């Protein structure tokens, strides 16, 4: 009897938490199938005629508003997001994994300081670096280029990769690599055949997380890129038009833009938890 009561209470508590966290997502999803009129009516209601107009506008690139037809660059923004996030993560893995290995295995002068400096980029508000960065970028001709954005995105991705992967290298221990070398294999072979495979859960988790963080970035792209290089996070601003805010389209854009990361996160959930919990315990 007491068992049953406990189970019911536990279920209720769980439901409450779920409602709290899922409500905004559900609401956005509902909004994306409504017109501005039904969204803005008071009091709000769950009853409405679903419409695909918002999605259609996004995908066809034209938006009908009361003040005329607008060009929408949403698909281009989506493409930018994919391009920027993937290339940034790729670059940060290429740089970060060997660096993480070096920090895990070798003690060198200023090693900890460098590692911490890299991490501290995550603490600093982006606005702190934006002003000098945009000046530099204009100097160097990197402003409004993909290369420049990818470079700046390393501020987001590299610390993540470095710290998560480092703890995995440390966890795997140097002993198995030593054993591999004593078997007669070179250091490089040991790095590829033993160290990397053993750190793989961490590398995967770090890569996924870095991808999501890069995808969600807003402010770097807003300042450093013009419309044709901007990702979806910035692109959604286009719906704040002179004639009003297109809530329906914004909602649809959000739904479409979170889909890739959501799918990725769900697919790799196990890896993410495994890879990150180690970092949390050991880090």
């Amino acid at each position, binding site marked *: 009897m007491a068992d049953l009561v406990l189970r019911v209470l536990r279920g209720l508590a769980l439901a409450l938490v779920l409602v709290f966290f899922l409500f905004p997502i559900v609401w956005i999803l509902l909004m994306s199938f409504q017109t501005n009129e039904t969204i803005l009516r008071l009091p709000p209601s769950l009853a409405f005629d679903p419409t695909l107009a918002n999605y259609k506008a996004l995908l066809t690139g034209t938006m009908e508003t009361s003040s005329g037809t607008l060009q929408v660059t949403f698909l281009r923004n989506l493409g930018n997001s994919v391009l920027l996030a993937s290339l940034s993560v790729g670059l940060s893995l290429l740089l970060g994994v060997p660096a993480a290995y070096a920090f895990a295995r070798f003690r060198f002068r200023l090693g900890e300081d460098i590692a911490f400096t890299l991490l501290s980029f995550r603490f600093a508000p982006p606005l702190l670096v934006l002003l000098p960065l945009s000046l530099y970028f204009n100097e160097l001709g990197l402003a409004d280029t993909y290369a420049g954005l990818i470079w700046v995105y390393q501020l987001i991705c590299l610390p993540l990769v470095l710290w998560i992967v480092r703890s995995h290298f440390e966890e795997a221990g140097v*002993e*198995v690599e*030593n*054993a*591999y*070398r*004593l*078997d007669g294999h070179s250091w490089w*072979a040991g790095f590829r055949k033993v160290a990397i*495979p053993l750190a793989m859960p961490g590398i995967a988790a770090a890569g996924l997380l870095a991808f999501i963080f890069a995808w969600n970035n807003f402010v770097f792209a807003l300042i450093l890129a013009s419309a044709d290089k901007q990702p979806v996070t910035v692109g959604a601003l286009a719906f704040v038009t002179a004639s009003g805010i297109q809530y329906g389209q914004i909602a649809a854009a959000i739904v479409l833009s979170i889909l890739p990361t959501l799918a990725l996160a769900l697919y790799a959930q196990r890896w993410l938890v495994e890879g990150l919990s180690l970092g949390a315990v050991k880090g």
Partner: protein
Amino acid sequence: MSAAEGLLIRGLTAAFGKREVLRGVDLAVAPGETVVLFGPSGVGKTVLLRAVAGLERAGGEVSVAGREVSGLPPEARGLGMAFQNFALYPHLPARENIASPLRARRLPEAEIARRVGAIAALLRIGHVLDHAPRELSNGQKQRTALARALAAEPRALLLDDPLRNVDAKLRYEMRLELPRLLARSGAAAIYVTQDYREAMALGQRVAVLLDGRIVQDAPPEEVYDQPATVEVARLFGDPPINLLSAESLPGGRLRAAGLEVPLPDSLRALPPDAQLGLRPEHLSLLPSPAPGAAPASVVAVTPLHERQVVLLRTASGEELVASLAGAAPPVGAAVWAAAEPGHALLFAGGQRIAHGAGREVAAA
């Protein structure tokens, strides 16, 4: 065969920052010979092995089968090594773990399969070759690690306390099997342990590492019966040796904790800091007074394996430990403890100055 064809270590030094861990270690191991490197934990045994393997920066010379390897990276030294924590490759099945050194030598696939099969049969792990390391029992892991170390038939083997992490039953089994296996491999083997029984069971010689140096390098029985220093005497033996401060008596005798034994012939008198070392198994308990025996009472009886370990307090207040093959007297009983003079050890300044009181004297 001489050590020149086996493993030769000369003047090995290693330091962590300012702390000198190895201060000039010399060790020679002939092919087919097993030398146990023994010492308490933290004394630098593993550092020594790692230095020989090329995993630790070290000074001095190391040669394997007549080839100087000191300057070479680990993979070029041609050594086999078994680690305390096994260090198996978790992402590879046992078969690939064992095959690893053979693959490094780029042997043909058929030859690799043949050799892995042979060594696995020898170590009785043929039935688990396709298992991942996490699916193996500790004993199987340890055998797999040994198989990997032996697979390429290295001329020198480094075994870093490989039985540390297996249960008692397996430890005994391997203790009995290993000598045969190692002799058959023909490799010059250094076996690290901090268990003196394992050292005595497995080593043709035992090298005791203390304070960065080999303080004694001798057959196991010699280390046990004639330890070079007090420290070695304390480390060898369970229960450990009784160490009692000794004073000389008139008439060529000495006294310690109420026990009296004859002074060694070569010694006219004892140095002031002399200590008498008496192994617990060389103490006997008598029910009545006897010449030279110390009156004592039984404080506690704590059996160990086949023996009865008896904690005594002498009339003069010292503690003595006796290890008896037969039955022990009850707690509280009054007994007289007598020493076997032939096994008495005398130390001064930490060094052994004599053993077997009343007989021969070691070079002090």
